[in-house]
């Protein structure tokens, strides 16, 4: 699947001769490609497999929009010419007669990025970049830029969710590990029950809670804290994504933390105090360092899950709460641009590996403890 992110061979199998001739075009000398290019394209369009050409067209459209309709129109005309049994004097002129765009060199330039079996176009696309006529990497049109923004948001949300999970999870895990069994069991049920509940149920429950006519707004209005017109928008935006993801991923922070805290002997805090440390010092210097394996395990777990999260941001994220996972799903199922899909996925994987490496450098992977 990862190979798809660099695979560009399909189009080469559709237009092999055209591309071969294209490579001979001296762009400095002639404004348009030589006659042979037009000629090979003529025959390859006339005799090519319709489905393969269709696929190739989609690819060509990634390189420059407009290709699809241009080729479709042209193919129709070419087939007519072939049917009549005519042989054009100048293939070049024939093309230009069919459509003036064939005299526009920018279309031909876009071939440049397709002539190789391997292409980095999908990766550049995934970072809001494309090739210009010279084959240099440039930014996309402003209205087509969205991936960089989504990447940044994905990181921001993942980091925030990790931090919130830590802030909320640490005291809960501490209670779980230190309360008398009776209470800690009850608390454990409160932690695990949502954990076992379907993700969809929890996500939609958050919609019910957070929407403008939802439970929380209702209570706030009823208490008179906000006015009826001032209902807060808490869902279908980044806030909604943050709240819902934090709640959903919280157990992944609590459980590793709990498993680490459970085995820290209570005598350690006592010993530290006995040795003259105030409770706060004892916590910071004796307790906290011992929970680092749990913090790092929980943190890494939550971050990894958050960065690839899809369903929750898709449902509660609205327009500006979507994460990169949503785009991967979109290209996988809707646009069928699997190359881009694979590229987005590969970048995600790469980033994860970088984080893993950083983490290993800073904390040490041996320190991780899940239970």
């Amino acid at each position, binding site marked *: 699947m990862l190979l798809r992110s660099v695979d560009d061979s399909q189009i080469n199998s559709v237009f092999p001769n055209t591309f071969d001739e294209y490579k001979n075009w001296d762009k400095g000398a002639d404004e348009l490609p030589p006659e042979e290019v037009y000629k090979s394209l003529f025959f390859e369009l006339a005799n090519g497999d319709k489905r393969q050409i269709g696929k190739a067209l989609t690819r060509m459209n990634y390189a420059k929009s407009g290709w699809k309709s241009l080729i479709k129109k042209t193919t129709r005309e070419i087939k007519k010419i072939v049917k009549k049994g005519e042989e054009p004097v100048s293939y070049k002129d024939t093309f230009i007669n069919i459509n003036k765009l064939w005299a526009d060199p920018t279309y031909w330039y876009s071939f440049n990025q397709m002539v190789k079996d391997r292409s980095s176009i999908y990766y550049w696309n995934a970072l809001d970049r494309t090739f210009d006529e010279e084959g240099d990497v440039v930014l996309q049109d402003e209205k087509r830029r969205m991936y960089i923004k989504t990447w940044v948001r994905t990181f921001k949300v993942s980091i925030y969710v990790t931090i919130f999970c830590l802030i909320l999870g640490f005291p809960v895990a501490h209670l779980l590990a230190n309360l008398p069994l009776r209470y800690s069991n009850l608390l454990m049920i409160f932690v695990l029950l949502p954990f076992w509940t379907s993700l969809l149920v929890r996500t939609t429950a958050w919609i019910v809670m957070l929407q403008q006519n939802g439970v929380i707004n209702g209570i706030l209005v009823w208490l008179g804290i906000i006015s009826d017109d001032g209902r807060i928008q808490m869902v279908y935006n980044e806030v909604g994504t943050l709240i819902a993801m934090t709640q959903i991923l919280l157990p992944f922070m609590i459980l590793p933390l709990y498993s680490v805290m459970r085995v820290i*002997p209570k*005598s*350690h805090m*006592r*010993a*530290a*105090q*006995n*040795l*003259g*440390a*105030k*409770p706060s*010092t*004892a916590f910071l*210097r*004796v307790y906290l*360092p*011992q929970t*680092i394996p749990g913090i790092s395990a929980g943190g890494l777990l939550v971050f990894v899950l958050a960065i690839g999260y899809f369903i929750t941001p898709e449902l509660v994220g609205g327009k500006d709460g979507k994460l990169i996972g949503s785009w991967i799903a979109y290209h996988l199922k809707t646009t069928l641009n699997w190359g881009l899909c694979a590229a987005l996925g590969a970048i995600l994987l790469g980033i994860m590996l970088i984080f893993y490496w950083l983490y290993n450098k800073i904390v040490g992977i041996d320190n991780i403890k899940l239970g």
Partner: protein
Amino acid sequence: MNDTSKSFVKFEKIDKSYDGEVLVVKNLNLDIAKGEFVTMLGPSGSGKTTTLMMLAGFETPTNGEIFLDTKPISKIPPYEREIGMVFQNYALFPHMTVAENLSFPLEVRKISKADIKEKVQKALDMVELGNFGTRFPAQLSGGQQQRVALARALVFEPRLVLMDEPLGALDKNLREQMQYEIKHIHDRIGITVVYVTHDQSEALTMSNRIAVFNDGVVQQLSTPDILYEKPENSFVAKFIGENNTLNGVVREVNGSSCTVELDGGFGMVKALKINVNEVGEKTQLSIRPERVSIDNSTSDSNNFSGKIEELIYLGDHIRARLDVCGNNEFIVKVPNEGSFNHKEGDELKLSWNSEDVRALDL
């Protein structure tokens, strides 16, 4: 020792209850002099650890007050008490090296780096672990960890050191070795030690005085020899050392001695009157196994016989379990002098001095 002016640690009428109903420590009065090694000895659940925790400041007494150096300490938080403590499982901080563990109490006291280094090294040398400063606790053996814990409890020069069954996790040989080592360190630096254990031989080896706890009450507080030779009640007699018991009823009281008629009509025993008051009272007689002599009666009273149930050869002595006056757990220790040639099933003539029999409560 009961002079208040001399007592360094003083428990005054301490009660402690966790649930408001059951008292785990009842009306505890205890005085410990400066430089003394006092052991609280008792079975688990007897309140000895609770007492120690109250002294350390991790539990508050329900009633009463604890004085340290004549000042009440109930209101002082544990981190200001300047009391060192060796915990049951050492409670060494696993993320710090040995030296860091030892510097911790000094760092929180804001002592200068150079002084810390010197004191830590001194403390490590004291427990003969001078070269182990850079190791982590997990890299040490149980005995070494124990020494580190000891060094850490002493490094900040506390007024008092508490030890909560510190040798419980060690094997027998190491435990004995550590007992002497702790005792020597105590002798050398003269610090006051309060030690908690359920192991009586440990208590006898190390302590100046032993407080025997049972059921939240101090049963007896004395030096090891008195505790062993002159137990004041049947619990102490049973808990310290080996003890043979015979039950009976007091028939005659004569000053400090009494005559007891054994249950089951096995005869009369002359004994010291310790814990009984009147004629007709039920009593339990206590005789140490090594005070029972075989075959050579020296007195006209207290002559009995017993059937050998079991003989166990223990090298320096032979341990004989006899059936005497209805008690078939009666133990006699026969020195291995080569003259003992009885078999299991034989009848033995036994006798003991009336001063060695103590009539205690039942």
